[in-house]
């Protein structure tokens, strides 16, 4: 009697376990299938919209990598090749030479190269760039805005939740299709903004 009872019990447990197991397998499979239906439409990567960027400097400090995966990228096609480059020189610079005290970049990652009178080309040494955006701010304020901050996808780990996106004050970060992973700004694509009134707190 006891023996038989126990036998039945084990069978019942086995039956239950099999049922639950099948249920979970179907459940996980179903979730997987439901999610997979549009999963093949392409991977997403993080990128910052250069036209929304306000160069607050958090890209340099908030990335999980040191130095940050956000780098300044030069869109040469927009550059005016200025002698007095707002991205290269500090605003109060008197002499336009490459002396360190004249440079805006804290790591001298911007290289100035003479092309022909009166044009100079500016290249970014990627290994030195920390993504602080000081040159970007200078270029945007005084020049054509050809220096732009972008997530460098060779370096980016594509974290589940970008650590910079969490703290970006202008909500410039979003997931973009990996097939077209850069969001440069070009002339005239800046959305109209409400400039803050001085003293309006």
């Amino acid at each position, binding site marked *: 009697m006891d023996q038989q009872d126990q036998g039945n019990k084990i069978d019942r447990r086995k039956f239950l376990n099999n049922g*639950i197991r099948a249920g*979970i*397998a179907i459940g*996980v*499979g179903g979730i*997987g299938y439901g*999610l*997979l239906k549009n*999963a093949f*439409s392409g*991977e*997403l*990567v993080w990128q910052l919209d250069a036209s929304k960027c*306000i160069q*607050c400097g958090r890209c340099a400090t908030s990335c999980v*990598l*040191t130095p940050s995966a956000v780098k300044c*990228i*030069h869109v*040469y*096609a*927009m550059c*005016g*090749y*200025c002698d*007095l480059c707002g991205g290269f020189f500090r605003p109060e610079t008197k002499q336009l030479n490459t002396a360190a005290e004249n440079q805006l970049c804290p790591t001298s990652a911007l290289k100035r190269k003479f*092309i*022909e009178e009166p*044009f100079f*080309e500016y290249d970014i040494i*990627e290994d030195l760039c920390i993504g602080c955006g000081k040159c970007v701010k200078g270029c*945007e*304020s*005084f*020049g*054509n*805005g050809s220096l732009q901050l*972008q997530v460098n*996808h*060779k370096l980016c*780990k594509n*974290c*589940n*939740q970008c*650590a910079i996106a*969490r703290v970006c*004050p*202008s909500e410039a970060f979003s997931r973009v299709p*990996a097939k077209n992973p850069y969001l*440069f700004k070009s*002339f*005239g*694509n*800046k*959305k*109209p*903004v*409400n*400039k*803050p009134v001085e003293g309006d707190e």
Partner: protein
Amino acid sequence: MKKFSVLFLLFFILYFLPGTSYAQRFPKPEFDSGHVQPPTLTPAPRAEFLAWFDVLVLIGSLSAASWFVIKKRSRKGVFWVSLFALAYFGFYREGCICPVGSVQNVVLAMFHPAYIIPATVVIFFSLPILFTLFFGRTFCAGVCPLGAIQDIVLFKPVKLKPWVQTALGLIPYIYLGLAILYAATATDFVICRYDPFVGFFRFDATFNMLFLGGIFLLVSLFIGRPYCRFLCPYGVLLNLTSRISRKHIAITPTECIQCRLCEDSCPFGAIELPSPVKPAEKRETSVRRFILLVIIIPPLVLAGGFAGSMLHENLASVHPKVRLAKQLLIPSKEVTEDIKVNIDAFKTSGKTVNELYAEVDGILKVFYVGGWLLGGFLGLVFGLTLANLSKFKYQPDYIPDKGTCLSCARCVDYCPVKPENPA
């Protein structure tokens, strides 16, 4: 000198011209020397087929670990597989992609259809669960890099009291609940952010995270796999599925002879001792207590849900929008530089304060519901754990507890029983 002053004047004027920040201030240069502008460098992301290679490696290492655990019963084999996984998924892939974090991607994709979850992530989420359903937690034993890094530093395991283990074992449920809440509300991916070992894999992290990781490794010297047992949210899912796994590692290959040699072999306290022949108390007493504990589960769920809903504002304050709305209310004297950046950026965004508040109201409502669900879930887990304590199951042998056993196969080396000769 005159040239400079003219240029500066020009800049001065341009700087204060409103709304022209993206106008082409300087014309495109025309080079006489025939200089060609270099192209803009746009390094491509990691190729997609490499993600599929990761999937292949996952399938391979899961199969190898399961084979070593179930068929070969070889601790050595499991150990080498886990070392490989630590090298590949840990140090080569630098901790990403991992099934532990993929829980959040799956939840985010379920609640936010706009987020397209990559197929490889879905596979990384479901494969270890399916393997666990058939072979036990072989993923934990041999494939998880977070488990492997703790396992290899295990030096002198200390046995924890069962009640400590049960109590600490509740933390993963809280962690899982929070991770799901924050992923479902698209607030944050907490599991990834507070992953203590990813800093070691990358040789790069903030001081706080490295410190936390160091503490975990230090504790791992004496307490086996503290993260796996007392924090890992994915472990909760594997624990539950492993309980009904089709096959599972057994300490003895044939029949237990109660020699007690394996009694202290498990560093994770996952071996169930044989139950005493006679229960310590009368059956009626334990049954009555069990019924009582089952009856208090619904009130516990309600109380948990109520507590969770009361805390919903605290839970929501992690959300960036809620944080911003709070910062806007700070009196201007107390605003720090950092917060000022946020406030200024919000003012230039063109959104009105009321729009933000309306949005935050919506977020808070979602968190109110989420607080109820999270609290209710935790109440249920707490109640079931309590009820389970008074459940008496008679079993005569030394067997692994299928839920908490990590299938590391340490215990099999302690068993003196030889497998029957197949011949």
